[in-house]
């Protein structure tokens, strides 16, 4: 119930491609879904976040799609660049202060 399942575990795309990372959850009490980007040797940094009353949110080249009925959400990176190579974590939280993280997706964008 408290899990967030993330896939794929790793992803390799060519520069300019559109990597898609998918997450699924069971707990309908989750009401905040952030995505974090983590570079090696750094802490995670918030990339973009969405609430369940919105089906899509765009910030620059990053888009979250949210399907409340399916309890799934995904991150799309448009026109991906080598500098986007990082580990991406989806997450979910409800009331309280605990954030449940997905297992992470290691993205590599080939030049």
């Amino acid at each position, binding site marked *: 119930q408290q899990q967030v399942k993330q896939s794929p575990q790793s992803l390799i795309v060519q520069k300019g491609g559109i990597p898609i990372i998918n997450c699924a959850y069971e707990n309908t009490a989750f009401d905040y879904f952030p995505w*974090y980007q983590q570079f090696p*040797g750094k*802490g995670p940094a918030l990339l973009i976040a969405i609430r369940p009353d919105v089906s899509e949110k765009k910030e620059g080249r990053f888009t979250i799609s949210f399907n409340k009925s399916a309890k799934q959400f995904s991150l799309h990176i448009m026109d991906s660049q080598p500098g986007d190579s990082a580990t991406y974590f989806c997450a979910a939280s409800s009331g309280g202060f605990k954030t449940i993280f997905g297992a992470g997706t290691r993205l590599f964008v080939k030049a």
Partner: protein
Amino acid sequence: DAMVIQNPRYQVTQFGKPVTLSCSQTLNHNVMYWYQQKSSQAPKLLFHYYDKDFNNEADTPDNFQSRRPNTSFCFLDIRSPGLGDAAMYLCATSRDPGLGGTRRPQHFGDGTRLSIL
């Protein structure tokens, strides 16, 4: 820039020798967290402080303790480190949105990588 600062970035200690990791923030956030992150894994919450109230996760070993002497600082104490405690330790902060308020993201430091000899 307002930020979350962790010191040291790298810490080496001996098996069983107590070690303290520190975190400071200039964001004036009332919630502070400590996470453990092992290689290629998601961050795992150890505990958090809401102001001075300490909240321990059920599966956090007793070996791990924390102190928050004021809003800006928080410490992670590992009383008797074992080889399995080698990891990156991440500090994070967030602002409590209050009842019905807009949820706020967590802001992470760059972590302390702990090695155990």
